[in-house]
């Protein structure tokens, strides 16, 4: 849209909190890699799920096409919230993994602080597409190896090599069930985003 009418309605009322600013981080990765667990371990609100419309235009080849007159369907997406200070509120969005939902990634990526790509070392190939996507859009990202039982024997360096992760991009081993570990991962991403923006 090229026109930019004033959105957001009238000016703030006196007494309304000033300078509120929403921020967001995308959480990406293959199916079952721990996106929901990661979001829930960090969120201060109960796990929430939103539904987003998907039009037939954006669906492409999809089940919905086979249903006559079905022009829209919805996709569920997990999200969480961290109140950072009295002005900054950070939202975490678990990005739906399947390729047909990539139209939603564009909206989620727009204006984001960055992205966390969760990796299961037993299925690293499922993370290629997400890494490509964020590199293409120059969105800062961190790669997080979510440690499932029996996956600790994979050296981090081999994962960096296998996924062709750029040297400056953080690569951490973590446990998405552990809030401290998830927070450390988020901090690593924001440090990286800050370093990049300072360049």
């Amino acid at each position, binding site marked *: *849209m090229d*026109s*930019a*009418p004033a*959105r*957001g*309605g*009238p000016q*703030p*009322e006196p*007494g*309304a*909190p000033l300078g*509120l*600013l*929403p*921020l*967001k981080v995308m959480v990406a990765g293959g199916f079952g890699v721990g996106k929901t667990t990661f979001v829930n371990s960090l969120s201060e*609100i*109960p796990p*929430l*799920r*939103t*539904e*987003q*419309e998907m039009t037939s235009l954006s669906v492409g080849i999809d089940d919905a096409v086979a249903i006559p007159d079905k022009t*829209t369907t*919805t996709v569920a997406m997990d*999200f969480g*919230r*961290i109140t*950072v*200070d009295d002005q*900054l*509120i*950070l*939202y975490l*969005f678990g990005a739906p993994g399947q390729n047909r939902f990539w139209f939603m990634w564009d*909206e*989620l990526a*727009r*204006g*984001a*602080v*960055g992205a966390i790509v969760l990796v299961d070392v037993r299925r690293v190939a499922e993370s290629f597409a997400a890494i490509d996507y964020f590199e293409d*859009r*120059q*969105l*800062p990202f961190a790669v997080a190896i979510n440690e499932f039982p029996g996956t600790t024997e994979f050296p981090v360096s081999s994962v960096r090599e296998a996924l062709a992760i750029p040297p400056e991009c953080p690569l951490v081993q973590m446990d998405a069930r552990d809030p401290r570990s998830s*927070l450390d991962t*988020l*901090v690593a991403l*924001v*440090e990286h*985003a*800050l370093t990049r*923006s*300072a360049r």
Partner: protein
Amino acid sequence: MTDNGHYGWDQGGRVVPAYALTQGRTRTVGPDLPLEALVTATELAVQNLPTLQVERRAIVRMSMQPTSVVEIGAALHVPAGVARVLVSDLANAGFLTVHLPQPTDAVGGPGQEILGRLLDGLRAR
């Protein structure tokens, strides 16, 4: 939020289809509000609370504290697009103040100052 933890919204009680709430509109006029856009209730909304239709009243109640479009959609059990339309209507009526993200760097992300504050805030947790 209320004692039952659900923004004062009774779950599962909807009898009116979600799109009826927005007269069939699933898109806002003008640019879409981002999912993370925050809203706060205005004084005008508080004064007019009893006159508002039930979903709109629930949104105003939630927005006594800063609340995002995506949280409103989830609490009301409506798709994000419907929440956008309801929020836009309320904002245009002067009942909500919208706080948009303010991209400042070259690729649309938050600038250095904001990232620094975010980092400080996360490290302090």
